Structures are given as C-alpha cells and as structure tokens.
C-alpha cells in the first residue's frame, strides 16, 4: 500500500519526478519529434491521452485478472499488448470520427506504441503499489510531464535555430546536451515531493 496523497503524486509526476528528465524514458520520440512546437504539442497531447487511458486499463487488468490468477509474470506482455491495442483502436476511432485530428497527429499515434514512457508508467504503477485513484492521477501526471518536457525542448530547439552549433554536434548531440542541462535544472526540485 502506498500512502502518498493523490495531489502529491500528480504534481510530483509532472515536476519533481518528471518521467523524462528524472527517469529518461521516452527519449527516442523526444529526440526526433521536438523540432517544432506544434508537432511537439500534438505528440504530447496524444501521449497524455494514451498514458492516462492505458494506465487505467492496465491497472484493472493487472489487479483483477493477473493477480487473482497468479500470472503477474505476464505483466510485461499484457501491458505492451494493451498499449498497442489501445493505440490501434484510438487511431481507427480518430480516423473515423475526426479526420482533421487524425491528419494533425499523423505518424505520432502509431509512434506512441513504442514510447517506453507509457510502458514505464504502467510498471511504476505496479512497483510503487499505487491504488486505483493514485494510478489514475499518476498516469495523467506522467503524461503531462512528458508533454511539458517535449514542448519545452521544442521551444529551445526553435530558438536554437539562431545558434551556430558545431557540425559534429548538430541534431541529436546538442539535443542530448540540452536535455542534460534541463535535467540539472529539474534536479532543483529533488526532495520536494516523494512519490515512490
């Protein structure tokens, strides 16, 4: 049982334990899709939605199906299957009912399947023994934290358009360094809220 208050989990998962800057999960899409603020915003909101819903789904499946059957070792498989299936479902649903949004999100929806931050959120939920309400807010907070991170990076990268980065560092190299500096700044929040 985890007794951390829900508001602390929510705020903490956005700032103090930001899933990207504290755990460095979801780096691949963070590096690739942070070129423009609009793209980042699109991917970020998709991640918030998917992370929120799959955390709830995974919670229900894990505690009401796997635990009673003593099949906890299947957790990884089930979580990934749920995430992939959910993303497919959302994609079909969005395509059918809101083509505009579908084209705006483009390639990002399928990309989310392989975003390890989403699997990470489901696993943290189990490791930290969150209850249902805590898991819900953790999923939402971690998603918002990831979205905040990628949008911040996109802002910095747009400003970096005026920079003159040494050729070998252009692209991923300098973005990794900037992410490191951001992570250093976020370390200032260390110890503020403990959500373990």
């Amino acid at each position, binding site marked *: 049982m985890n007794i951390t208050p829900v508001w602390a989990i929510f705020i903490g998962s956005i700032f103090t334990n930001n899933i990207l800057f504290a755990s460095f999960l979801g780096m691949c899409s963070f590096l690739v899709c942070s070129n423009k603020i609009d793209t980042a915003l699109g991917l970020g909101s998709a991640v918030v939605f998917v992370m929120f819903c799959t955390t709830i789904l995974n919670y229900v499946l894990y505690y009401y199906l796997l635990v009673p059957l003593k099949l906890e070792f299947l957790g990884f498989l089930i979580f990934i299957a749920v995430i992939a299936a959910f993303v497919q479902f959302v994609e079909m649903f969005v395509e059918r009912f809101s083509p505009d949004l579908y084209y705006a999100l483009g390639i990002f929806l399928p990309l989310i399947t392989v975003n390890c931050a989403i699997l990470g959120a489901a696993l943290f939920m189990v490791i930290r023994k969150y209850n249902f309400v805590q898991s819900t807010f953790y999923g939402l907070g971690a998603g918002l934290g990831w979205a905040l991170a990628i949008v911040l990076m996109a802002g910095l990268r747009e400003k970096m358009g005026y920079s003159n980065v040494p050729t070998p560092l252009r692209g991923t190299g300098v973005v990794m360094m900037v992410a490191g500096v951001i992570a*250093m700044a976020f370390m200032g929040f260390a110890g503020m809220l403990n959500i373990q």
Partner: protein
Amino acid sequence: MKGLKGILENLRPAFEEGGRLARLKPIFQALDHFLFAAAEKTPNPPFGRDPLDVKRYMSLVILALLPSFAAAVYFFGWRVLLMLLVSYAAGGLVEVLFAVIRKEEINEGFLVTGFIFPLILPPGIPLWLVAIGVSFGVLIGKEIFGGTGRNLFNPALVGRVFLAIGYPAALTSTWVQPLAQPWGRLLAPFGLGVPDALTSATPLGLAKSGALTGAFELFVGRTAGSAGETSALAILLGGVFLILVGVASWRTVLAVLASFVGLTAILHGLLPAAVPPVWFHLLSGGLLFGAFFMATDPVSGPVTRAGKWAFGFLIGAAAIFIRSFSGYVEGVMFAILLGNIFAPLIDEIVIRLKSRRYANER
C-alpha cells in the same frame, strides 16, 4: 597609446589572411578591439549606429558588478580576487580555443560570465573547482551553441548548477564567516589552499533550524554566503545603476521580486514555522543578485515585454518553492535556469496570442 597602436599596426599583417599567425587572429582582434575601436569597417549595408554595442553593454555590467566585488573582497578577503583570476584564465582558455578553432571573434560576453562566476560561489571553494565550473559553464552553456548571443542558458548558472549537483560536499561546506573588525578581511592572510575560517551554514541554512540572522547584517552583507551575494547594499547600488542605464530590464527585476515577495508572504502566513518572513528571504541568499544580474541576461531571457513579466513571475515562484520545500537550501540558481528553459516557450505563447489578437481586429 600611440606607441601601442604602432606596435599593433606592425603586427597586423602577420594575423591577416596568409600571414604566419593567421590562425591566432581572434586573439589579436580581441586585443585590438579591447584597446582601441574596431579597425575593420562594415563593408556593406545595413549599417547600424548605436553607442550601446555589445562591448559597452558588457562593460556597463562589469561596472555595476564592481560594488559587489568590492564587498566580496572586504568580507571574504583577497582570495576572491584569486578566484576571479582562475575563472578568467580557465574560462578564457575555453573561449580562445573555440574562437581559434572555429575562426570566430573572441566575444566580450565572456568577461561578464567570468566576472559573475566567482561571485556566485562560496568564498572558500577550492580553486580547481572554480576552473572546472567555469569551463563547464562556458563549454556547455555557451560555446556549443556558437558563443555569446546564441546561447540558450546563462553560462555562469550552468557552471554553478553543475558544481552544486556534481560536488555537493565542497559546495555546502566552504562558506567563510566574515570578521567583525572595521577592516573586514582585507588584512587577513590568504593562500592558494582552502582557508581555515570555514563555517558550515549560511543564513538560509541557519534558518532551517530556526535561527534568523538580523536584518542589518543581511543588508550590509556581514554573513556567510556566496562571495558576491551577501551584501544587499552593494547589489542594489549596482543593480539600480544597471536599470537606469537601460541594460537590465526593470520588468524582469520587478516581476521576480514581486512574485517572490507575494508568494513568500502567503507561505509565511500559512506555515509560519517552516517559512521565515519576507524581509529575511528577500535579503538572504542569492535572490537579489540573481534578480538584478542573472535573470536580466538579455540573451537567455525572453524578448517580449509580457514574456518578461511571465518569466520573472516563474523565477520568483520557483525560487521560494525550492527554498522552502526541496532538499536544496538555496533555489535561486535552479529557478533562473528553469526560467531560461521556459523563456522560448513563453515568447512563443506571447507572440501567438498577440498575432491572434491582431488577426481578430482586422
């Protein structure tokens, strides 16, 4: 001066293209620009005439920092001057190497970074840490983006935060207690090593255990703390000058101070035991120094006016939250770095809102 000019003119051909020392042209150019005006003329338009060029800008900041530097030497001894020399030497080396390799000019911006850096460090810090911190700050905070004017973060802050996270023991146990004599520490002996009059607590650290330092001591600066941040008096002297000459933005400073004071008042009202009163928080630690000299950095802060307000509010709020609730005693450096990170996004939001308003007016 004439003789000096003659020597420089004689040397000039060697540094021009095809000369023997052409590779080292940035060094010659910096010396030339520093002693005289720029010899090169801008060959084609647009021509801009502004008495406030980058060089004047930077020298005004240094002028404004002098009171704080004098206070630091008075309270913490001549070792601060040694720290400044190390900072200039180590950071300057990185700057010169980059300029030579990338065939760019040496930029005056470094003079400010190298001057600020020792002032935001504990005065008893080992000198090799000064060198490591300033090199990291100049390299990661500035040079990888192409030098002054193109950096995303304040280089001095990047170096400071790096030291605070990477060498926490050295950064929290090397505070120096000022002496009570009228001549301060000016006559105290000093050496290359770590001084022996160390204390382990700044006013903010003491306040965590309930002991508040007096307002007068905090205002004058006779307390332990980072070299240049303790004397509110000296910071105000330089800071107000910087605002009057138009180098620092009063909006940023006012926004930082307003949100900091407002939130501290609220938090003190809610949790009087955990959060000391407003006057104490305002005068202690690096808040004033950060607000006047670091948050106002025109390169790493936002450009829009509304953005400057939002940027300042964010810094003030983050500073008091980190001070009150996180594991770190002082939060101003993290707060300003966070401000730098949010700055481009803030600008973008302000510009989008404005352009939407104009579009609606049509």
